[in-house]
């Protein structure tokens, strides 16, 4: 009778599963505590305790924003827009062949070409555009060209990855139908594959453009042009009211671009 009563209490896991889940959480907790201790080895806690005072002081200096400074920012905003847009175009042009080489159903060879294409995608995705910009500024000199190429290189991985996934998901019947007419490989791609991936492709491009606007606002911090250049120079001379205005302008740009891209993507689908 006692055994039966025990079974009546409902549990969401079996015994063994409960132990595994418990062990998993325990391991994560231990790891986090260990990392926390290691991370804070060099932390100067005095600065941390002092932070609220510093924050109050900083906010006091940042307001009100220097509104008239905006007249100097129009050119920088235009540069930022160009970095993002031209960078996206460059990235898309470079990503297109990479995606076709990486997709299992269009690649010429799964053994040799596909791994190379996948490696290109992985490297481009792992390295932030700010790091590319840092490198390119030492190579090409400061200016928006370095920014455009940095954004382009960073976009390859993102665009190519989403694009090759949508190429792999295409409907093969229409490919076979076109092939059965004796079409060449190029014609097959043009008439059977491109029409199927075009909406996805444009959607991906606009999505990436939105991300790139966001990223190009800070590339100026390392000298690659755009509004970030003004941000870093205003901060270097501790002109906090200017900094506030620049950050407000960046926020407004990001919000507008996000709104635009969401609107256009909804039109496409």
């Amino acid at each position, binding site marked *: 009778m006692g055994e039966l009563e025990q079974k009546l209490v409902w549990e969401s896991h079996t015994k063994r599963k409960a132990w595994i889940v418990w062990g998993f959480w325990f391991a*994560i907790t231990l790891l986090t505590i260990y990392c*926390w201790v290691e991370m804070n080895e060099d932390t*100067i806690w005095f600065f941390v305790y002092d932070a609220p005072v510093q924050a109050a002081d*900083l906010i006091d200096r940042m307001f009100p924003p220097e509104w008239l400074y905006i007249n100097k920012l129009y050119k920088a905003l235009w540069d930022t827009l160009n970095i993002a847009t031209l960078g996206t175009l460059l990235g898309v042009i470079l990503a297109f062949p990479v995606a076709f080489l990486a997709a299992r159903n269009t690649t010429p060879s799964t053994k040799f070409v596909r791994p190379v294409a996948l490696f290109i995608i992985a490297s481009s995705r792992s390295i932030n555009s*700010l*790091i590319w910009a840092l490198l390119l500024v030492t190579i090409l000199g400061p200016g928006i060209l370095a920014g*455009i190429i940095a954004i382009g290189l960073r976009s390859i991985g993102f665009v190519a990855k989403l694009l090759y996934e949508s190429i792999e998901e295409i409907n093969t019947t229409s490919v076979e139908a076109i092939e059965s007419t004796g079409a060449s490989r190029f014609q097959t791609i043009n008439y059977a594959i491109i029409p199927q991936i075009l909406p996805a492709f444009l959607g991906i491009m606009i999505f990436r453009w939105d991300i790139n606007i966001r990223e190009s606002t800070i590339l100026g911090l390392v000298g690659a042009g755009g509004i970030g250049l003004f941000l870093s120079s205003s901060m270097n001379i501790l002109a906090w009211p200017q900094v506030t205005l620049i950050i407000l302008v960046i926020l407004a740009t*990001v919000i507008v671009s996000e709104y635009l891209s969401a609107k256009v993507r909804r039109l496409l689908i």
Partner: protein
Amino acid sequence: MRTWERPHYLVPDKRWRIALWIAFFLYLIVGIGSIEVNWLRVYEGLERGGRFVEGFLNPNFTRRAADIYSGIYESLTMTVTSTVVGILLSIPFGMGAARNISPKPIYLFCRSFIAVSRSMQEVIVAIFLVALFGFGAFAGFLTLTYATIGFLGKLLAEEIEEIDKKQLEAIASTGASWLQRMHIAIWPQVMPRMIGLSFYRFDINFRESAVIGIVGAGGIGATLNTSIDRYEYDSAGAVLILIILIVLACEYLSGWIRKWVS
């Protein structure tokens, strides 16, 4: 003889199509025209570009071994703590920002917190936090935590808004408390995707930790910045290769764990 033409999908009207293409090319001309390039400087830089490619292909792990090791170590510890704390904090923010389970004032507060966190670049946040908390990993930890709350909070809120209402009603009808309803009716529905997203965010946090070091918030970015500034492209190549390898390892691991969970 009429020949067949492939129909156009997006803009069927020919005039609109031509107008859009003209606008596009006009923008290209104006946009590319606005690039100012000092070709002499580019020509001089090409040699450095060659050295970078060479350095990337023959990375030097030894010259800055100590810096690289401590930088990667700091990046990893920062990533772990900020991801864990970020996930924990994103749960209340995500629940607060879900329209179907939270009252209006809390909803508005959480939504605007998430919106601000999402539209601020990590690097800009890091600059401010470094100014407030001093150089080092603690500022980086706070930056990444803040960014994680925005990212996961928004996705969690969307996930909760899309749950199957019947389960919530069924559990509520048994007289379950608020906590029990959350735990038994909502958590199982959102958990699988949340685990996947958490690993994805871990990945992003690691990549970002390489960047915020450039503005002084700890991690591998500082090492990378010095080696690029000193034109030591072989050390920079070593750091970049380590970053790529760790990101790839994270991706594999998260794919494996996601399969295991589902």
